[in-house]
C-alpha cells in the first residue's frame, strides 16, 4: 500500500491538488460562503482523475503487482489526504478570522468547528458519489464529477438553509463564538465522513474489480 501511495504522490496527483490546499486563506474574507472555499479541492481531485486519463495511470498501475482493490484504496487515501489537509490548513485561518474580525459572516455559516463538520460531510458525499461512478469505467470523469458536485451542493445548501431558518441552530452554529454544539456537529461530521468513505471504497472496489480494462 505504501508503494502505491508513493506512486500516487510521485506520478498521479495533479499540481492543482497542492495549489488548492492554500484556499483555506479565503476564510479571511469577512463575508463569503465558506463551503465554497472547500469546493475548490474537489476540482483538484477531479483534475487528478482527469489527468489520469491522459497519463494512462489506471493501465500503468494495474499492470504492477497489485490487486485492483488496492488501486482503489490508494486513490481513496490520496483523496482523503487532500481533503483533510485542506481542512487542517484552513483551521489557522478560521481562528485568525474570528480573532481579527469577530463580526458575523453575512454570506453563510461562520468559520467555526461546525463549519468543518459540515465540510467533512460535504467531502464524504462527494467521495461516495464520484469514486464509485468513476470506477465503473476507469476513465470517465465528467459525468461522475457533475453528479458528485450536484449531490454535494444539495447537502450543503440544505444544511445552510436549516441552520439559517432555525433560530436555535443559527445562534449556536452560525457564530464566531464557541458553543459546545459546534463540537458535536464536528464529531458527527467526522463519523459521517468515515462511514461515507468506507461506502465509497466498497462500491468503487466492487465496480473496478468487475471492469474489463
Amino acid at each position: 500500500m505504501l508503494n502505491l501511495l508513493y506512486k500516487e504522490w510521485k506520478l498521479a496527483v495533479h499540481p492543482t491538488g497542492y495549489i488548492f490546499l492554500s484556499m483555506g486563506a479565503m476564510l479571511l474574507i469577512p463575508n463569503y460562503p465558506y463551503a465554497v472555499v472547500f469546493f475548490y479541492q474537489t476540482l483538484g481531485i477531479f483534475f487528478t482523475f482527469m489527468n489520469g486519463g491522459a497519463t494512462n495511470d489506471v493501465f500503468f498501475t494495474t499492470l504492477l503487482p497489485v490487486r485492483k482493490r488496492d488501486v482503489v484504496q490508494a486513490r481513496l487515501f490520496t483523496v482523503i489526504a487532500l481533503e483533510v489537509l485542506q481542512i487542517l490548513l484552513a483551521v489557522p485561518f478560521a481562528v485568525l478570522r474570528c480573532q481579527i474580525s469577530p463580526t458575523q459572516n453575512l454570506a453563510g455559516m461562520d468559520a467555526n468547528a461546525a463549519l468543518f463538520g459540515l465540510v467533512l460531510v460535504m467531502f464524504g458525499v462527494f467521495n461516495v458519489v464520484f469514486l464509485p461512478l468513476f470506477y465503473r469505467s476507469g476513465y470517465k470523469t465528467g459525468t461522475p464529477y457533475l453528479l458528485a458536485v450536484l449531490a454535494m451542493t444539495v447537502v450543503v445548501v440544505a444544511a445552510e438553509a436549516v441552520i439559517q431558518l432555525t433560530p436555535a441552530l443559527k445562534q449556536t452554529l452560525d457564530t464566531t463564538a464557541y458553543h459546545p454544539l459546534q463540537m458535536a456537529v464536528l464529531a458527527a461530521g467526522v463519523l459521517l465522513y468515515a462511514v461515507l468513505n468506507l461506502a465509497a471504497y466498497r462500491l468503487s472496489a466492487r465496480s473496478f474489480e468487475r471492469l474489463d480494462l
Partner: protein
Amino acid sequence: MDALTVSHLEKRYPSFHLRDVSFRVQPGRIMGFIGRNGAGKTTTLKSILNLVHPDSGAVQFFGLDMPAHEFAIKQRTACIFGAANYYPQSALKTIAAVYRRFYPTWDEPLYQSYLQRFGLDPNKKIRQLSQGMSIKFALTLALSHHAELLILDEPTSGLDPVSRDELLHIFEDIVDREGASIFFSTHITSDLDKNADNITYIQNGHIIASGDKDAFVASYRKVEGRSEDLPPALKERIIGLHERKGEFSGLLRAADAAGANGLAVTPADLESIMVCTERG
C-alpha cells in the same frame, strides 16, 4: 512445471468471441503468439492477466491459479503492452523510482546497464522519447527485476531492424542465462523465425495451432509455378492460392507436396504460412 497454462478460455463480446483458447508456455522457452490485427492476441493477453474477465476457463502461472494468486504471480512476471505510453510529463528516473518499489527482485545495476545499452537518458521525460525509445524504456523496466515470465505485446513493433535484432538477442540471453520464459505477441513473424521455440497461432478468436515452431513450419511448403501446370486435384488443396498473369503461388501441407511434381516447392516460413492461411 509450466510457466503458463491456459485452458479453455472463453470471452464473448458483442462483436468478438474468444473461443476455447488453450496453450502452455514451458519454462526456458520463447513462445511466439501470432495472428493478424483483431484476431484476439491482446484480448487473450489481457484475459490471462485478469485485466479482462474471462467468461470461463482457467489460467495458471507457475502452477498458481490466477486470479487467486494475482499478487504473487505479478511479482514474478513482467508485462508490457507496446510502448511506455504513460505519464508523458514525468522523467524516466521518476517512473523507475516508483516502479522498482513494487519488485523485491529489482536489480539496480542491471537496470543501469540496460539504460546504457539502449542509450536512454534517465533525466528525459517520456514525451521526449521517440516511439522506439519509449518501447526500449518499457522493456528496460520489464527486464530489470529478473522476471521468470515475460509477457510482451508487440515488443518489436516500431523498432528499427538493428534494435529489433538487439532485443531478440537479449531475449535469448534472458532465456539461456536466467531460465526465464517469454511469451510475446507480434505480427512481425520474421522475429519469431529467428528465435521462437514455440508458436501459438490465433485466428478470429480461436487457436488454430500451438506447439513446436520448427515442426509447425515443417508441416507446410510454399509452392509456385505456372497455372497451366497446376493439376486441378492439387489446386483444391492449395491454401491461399494467388493467381496472376498465368502464374500462381500458395501453400501446401507437407503431406500434399508429394503431388506437386514439376512445380517449385520450397520450405515455408511463418509469414507465408500466416498470409496464405488468412487468405484462405
